[in-house]
């Protein structure tokens, strides 16, 4: 075990949240809770990425007073990556929720075990 576990507390919490979200995705049988678990996994990964770009003692990357040295701003690259990710995550959530609505209109249940059982019975 390395020495930096309590120093990198933000990243450790991001990993714990990732595992909680993944457990939700695997163990819950309700469809909507699975989708919430996937969203939690997404935001945990974004937290990890943003923590990698943070440098203590420096400000946000907006040029103030013409100061353009690297010593004054945090790393802007992970911020751009996460911005893309947040928008993609909302698209994925919307798509999955529309799938849930159609599944409910067909089978009248939100339980994934029930749905897969009925699918097997119908022979699909």
């Amino acid at each position, binding site marked *: 075990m390395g020495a930096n576990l309590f120093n990198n507390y933000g990243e450790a919490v991001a990993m714990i949240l990732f595992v909680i979200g993944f*457990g939700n995705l695997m163990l819950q049988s309700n469809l909507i809770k699975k989708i919430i678990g996937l969203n939690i996994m997404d935001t945990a990964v974004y937290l990890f990425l943003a923590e990698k770009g943070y440098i203590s003692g420096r400000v946000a990357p907006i040029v103030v007073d013409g100061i353009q040295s690297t010593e004054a701003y945090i790393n802007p690259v992970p911020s751009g990556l996460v911005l893309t990710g947040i928008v993609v995550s909302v698209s994925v959530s919307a798509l999955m929720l529309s799938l849930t609505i159609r599944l409910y209109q067909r089978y009248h249940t939100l339980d994934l075990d029930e749905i897969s059982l009925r699918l097997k019975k119908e022979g699909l």
Partner: protein
Amino acid sequence: MSRMKSEEEYRKTKAFHFFRWLSGEKDPYVGNLEMKPQKEYIEEEASLRERMRENQMVMDKVYDTRHNKWLFLFRRFYRIMAVVFCAMLAGLLLFTVSYLPPTGNASNPDNNEVAERYIESGMQETGAVNIVTGMILTYRAFDTFGETNVLFIATCCVMIMLMVEDAELKRQEVMNDRRFEPKNDAILQGAAMILVPIIFIFGIYIILNGHLSPGGGFSGGATIGAGMILYASAFGFKKTERFFDEKIYKITKVSALCTYGLIGIYYYVTGANGIENHIPLGIPGHIVSAGIIFPINICVGIEVACTMYAFYALFRRGGL
């Protein structure tokens, strides 16, 4: 038929018999055996029902989940293994995190010359005061184009699944939607009348000042979309259709994406071949500056706002 012999003589020869047997035109038993005319076989109702009942009994027995020992054991096994797997994953990830370089250290390996180049020559090369917006719309404009594409595709897929074209079904959807709600809620309408203009102005401000202060196309577009959602849920969809119906939606969305594509193509082609692109960068700090960032922000903002409102309208009513 032979030309040497006549018809009746040919029918007596062996060649004719052979070829007729070969092609199967003659039934060899007609005239030889005595055969009665056949009756059509109609299946009885009772036997059909009996067969279907037996089929149903077999299906019920096979797919009977409550009394199936193996299924019960498998479910238990799956749950225990899932928890064990998650615990092992958590342990492994925390172990890795403990070996990472400390957060907030300036000499981390990921604060390398890329970040240095973006910060130090960012304002000169892109003209934007906000380094992040300048970076994602000039240095990494292709990624942002891909992301805008993802939004477009997601809207198309949600339209495929939830859009209702039939007039009768559409009326039923609208009736189902508004049935259990009060028609004119006083609090919601009062609050919306005050808040919606403020939200729109704030959203437009965020989009236009994307290169000067935090914000940009995505945040501003999401804010405007949220404002439209508030208006539609307070005043009903009939009033929203006055300024935003399906035709306007299609035209704005497709033209925003295509404009982004065209501006982007010009930028990539001149940049990749080393040709000078004559886009004026302006004075950093003014609104109309930063080259292509200003029109691209507006396109992305319009696209995102249309997407958010389309998601809401499709979910509620099955149509815009």
